[in-house]
């Protein structure tokens, strides 16, 4: 294409075999190396709609162009050295992210906020190491004898910071993959209608016949920017029906793997034996259960009190009258925010490799502290601190040994 790079031109896509005009398009040209991958890139903007895009793609494929593999552009950008590993992984997360809030995390990571934070942590570890190492390598000099107690304070605060980062992964996972919410309750308590209300669609089959939902229904919803995966389970009750029995087992599995469980009770029926049985079945999960009393429009206070006596904290809603839904949504959000991580200010780990490395660094620092308490010698304590710095270096791409040595030369006076 004989026109300058980084300009957009108007043109027509014409099938060379039939001379048919497929679409009017805008073509952007980005010549190497000033492109995402650092290679030559051409982008075609066509009119909306699936058919036009498909016809253009078919034509291109016919001419020998192949579709990119998943993540191929990022991979090329990484291989060509335009972006580092943290950035590449953040981009992968960005592409995989579902809602606006999680793209915010992915973007800030991309901009190096995670790198910045990790670099600060790594540098303070290197400072500590240099102080220890200069004592080990220059014993004849009278540097202040380093005591691990002095370093312990810094190490403790780093442990807290790393701990937050590692924990943030779970929240990061929520942002990326969505919060897994299982809806349970006895048959016909109104689980499916709640799901439909939350998703705003009429997806689950809603009937008055108990056991209509026999398999698990999944629905992605967006609750005030938080991606939520709702799982509507079959009613949990003792049953002889084989199909339904499988459904019940699956529901229990869903409870086990869910981040949050909505236990739906029926205000109309009050607290029944079946509710008690379910309560017993899921009692180990009580910390992640929200109790939702539905159908408050169809009952009186007495029935609701039956439930309140047994379960002190309930959220009362009426799907039919659209009452209390906002309170429920708020509770779901609060649960997701339990670790009180504010994505606008904090750095969040969204990558499993990062989480693993940081968890290892955290362990090493804990070991170093307890070794210090146990009267271990400096060379051993230093081993774990170095290990922690190294693990963080694997994320930021830094080599530790050389930096410690440089730090010693810069900050300590030694010589012959």
């Amino acid at each position, binding site marked *: 294409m004989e026109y300058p790079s980084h300009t957009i031109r108007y043109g027509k896509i014409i099938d060379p075999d039939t001379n048919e005009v497929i679409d009017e398009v805008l073509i952007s040209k980005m010549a190497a190396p000033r492109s995402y991958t650092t290679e030559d890139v051409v982008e075609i903007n066509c009119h909306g709609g699936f058919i036009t895009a498909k016809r253009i793609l078919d034509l291109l494929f016919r001419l020998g162009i192949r579709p990119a593999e998943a993540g191929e552009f990022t991979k090329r950008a990484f291989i060509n050295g335009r972006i580092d590993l943290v950035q590449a992984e953040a981009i992968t997360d960005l592409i995989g992210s579902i809602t606006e809030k999680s793209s915010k995390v992915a973007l800030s990571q991309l901009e190096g906020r995670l790198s910045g934070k990790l670099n600060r942590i790594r540098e303070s570890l290197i400072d500590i190491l240099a102080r220890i190492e200069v004592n080990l390598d220059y014993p004849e000099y009278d540097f202040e004898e380093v005591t691990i107690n002095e370093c312990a304070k810094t190490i403790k605060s780093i442990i807290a910071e790393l701990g937050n980062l590692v924990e943030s992964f779970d929240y990061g996972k929520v942002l990326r993959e969505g919060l897994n919410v299982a809806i349970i309750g006895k048959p016909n308590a109104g689980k499916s209608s709640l799901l439909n209300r939350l998703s705003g669609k009429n997806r689950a089959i809603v009937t008055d016949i108990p056991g209509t939902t026999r398999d698990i229904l999944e629905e992605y919803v967006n609750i005030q920017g938080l991606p939520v995966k709702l799982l509507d389970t079959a009613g949990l009750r003792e049953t002889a029906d084989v199909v339904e029995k499988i459904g019940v087992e699956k529901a229990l599995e869903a409870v086990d793997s869910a981040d949050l469980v909505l236990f739906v009770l029926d205000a109309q029926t009050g607290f029944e034996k079946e509710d008690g049985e379910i309560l017993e079945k899921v009692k180990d999960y009580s910390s992640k259960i929200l109790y939702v009393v539905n159908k408050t429009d169809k009952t009186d206070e007495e029935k609701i009190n039956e439930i309140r006596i047994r379960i002190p904290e309930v959220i009362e809603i009426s799907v039919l009258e659209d009452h209390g839904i906002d309170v429920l949504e708020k509770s779901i959000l609060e649960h997701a925010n339990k670790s009180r991580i504010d994505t606008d200010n904090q750095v969040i780990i969204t990558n499993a490799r990062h989480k693993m490395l940081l968890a290892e660094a955290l362990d090493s620092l804990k070991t170093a502290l307890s070794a210090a308490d146990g009267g271990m010698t400096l060379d051993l304590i230093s081993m774990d601190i170095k290990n922690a710095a190294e693990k963080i270096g694997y994320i930021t791409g830094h080599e530790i040994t050389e930096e410690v040595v440089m730090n010693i030369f810069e900050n300590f006076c*030694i010589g012959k």
Partner: protein
Amino acid sequence: MGFIHESYDVIVVGAGHAGCEAALAAARMGAKTAIFTMNLDSIANMPCNPNIGGTAKGHLVREIDALGGEMGRCADKTLIQSRTLNTAKGPAVYSLRAQIDRRSYQREMKHTLELQENLHLCQAEIVELVIKDNKVEGVITHIGSFFPAKTVILTTGTYLKGRIIIGDVTYEAGPDGLLPAKSLSESLKRHGIELRRFKTGTPARINRRSIDFSKMIEQPGDDPIVPFSFETEKIEREQVSCYLIYSTEETHRIIRENLHRSPLYSGVIEGIGPRYCPSFEDKIVKFADKERHQIFVEPMGLDTEEIYLQGFSTSMPEDVQYAMIRSLPGLENAQIMRYAYAIEYDCINPTDLKLSLEFKKIDGLFSAGQINGSSGYEEAAAQGIMAGINAALKVQGKEPLILDRSQAYIGVLIDDLVTKGTNEPYRMMTSRAEYRLHLRQDNADARLTPIGYKIGLISEERYQKFLKKQKAIQDEIERLRKKTVPPSEKINEFLDRHNSSRIVSGIKLYDLLKRPEITYDMLKEIDDEIPDLPNSVTDEVSILIKYEGYIAKQMQQIEQFKKMEEKIIPEDINYDEIKGLRIEARQKLSKFRPRSLGQASRISGVSPADISVLVIYLNALGRRRNGNEG
């Protein structure tokens, strides 16, 4: 060309600490070897501090000894004070350091060279290398004689175009008032070897009679003396003391007022000096807030009154030095015997070398020691023995011996120099070693003696002794693992006495020894079956048991490390063929030609992304080659 001598397998140019080890190793491995020195009376000289060892350096001496080298034995014979440093800081950093009688050491080393079979010690300056078709053929002396050789090892120290600087006075010289080697540099350059200028320095020497030791803090030696060499059983010797003093306000004032006269600051010195070993004026400038600096006052030998001032190296003019020294406590009337000087010299860029210390581009030419950009006698000797071994192996048509970073400090030293290069004289430090807890000075024999035996530097007798020691260590660990002591009143009284918690059920001696407050020697009080074992065995038993968990962790790290080291890159690899390598990485890799993926990953300018690309390429290449063969 003048007289043509008989041909040698290995020729060593220079008889300092690197040259001596190189020549002895090659000759002991059966290579017909010649070693040249400009002055037979300056063999194995210590032109700077009169001591051997220290942190990491002591480790190097132990490793040289474990491979069958000479430095440790020679130091044991001639030391006049011995100390173990860092005893409270952990087994990885216990370090031996000894004051040496400088003249005795030289005499001892010279005599060892003279007595060595297969070795010809000869006084001559080598002025030219003969290299044809990128292959070394021999050396030419200052008289014009030709010595043909299959391999040549350069161990020229600080002699190449040596230039001494004292204040604004400079003159061509080697160290310690010896002659410089002025011609060889030109020959190296003609053969395409890049030369760089490094700088080092040494402090003044004072006559002992003029020193008032009552104003100094005495630092006596340790008792008993721990030998360097695994072969030395015991050293019983009267030891001399060193002394410690501090610089004064007056010293600092003199330096500040005369800073403009220091060649470091006036621009006379161009060479790059080491950061870890700054001259005293550097310390005053860089660490201006420090009120005083330590200076160590060390004897140079038993039959000399010369005293060395460690920590006080400078290149100030004579009159400033005079005032500086006389401002120090106890040195008010100091009689200066030698003034401090800085020395500049030519050295090569060590990244031009393979890990075997052979030049990448010149077949059969090796180099070791300060010419490679290192600093220190021990660092020089460590490279020397490896160059000697590899030259001999080359003559035998065998693969080179390469110690990796997990095997020895020697491996760390050479890998750092060759892979990362250095911009200043390189000093060994324990913090440079990733696997420090494994690379201890006490187990250097376990790490390296089998290798020394395999290449023929360790005698059968010594090897059998080594095996016996290793077995004794294992047997004793096993015994402690099996023996349980009951919770008797005697045991609990013993535990009380050593501030250790009481026991209510039986405990294995092994587990008892794991307690930080319990030492192996204490066990003698409660274990009547304890065998009579030498310290070298019981120390090892104790370390292996006490630090078992940490050592196991370190071994896991080493295993990870080895995986990358063992991925050998084919020598005929064409980096231009690899798509996706960044240009910088491609250039660096093409120039360095790393031996393994591990080494490639340590080259500066090669990123983890480049390594990923390389891994993918090598895998594909492996499949293609296997496919072709199959």
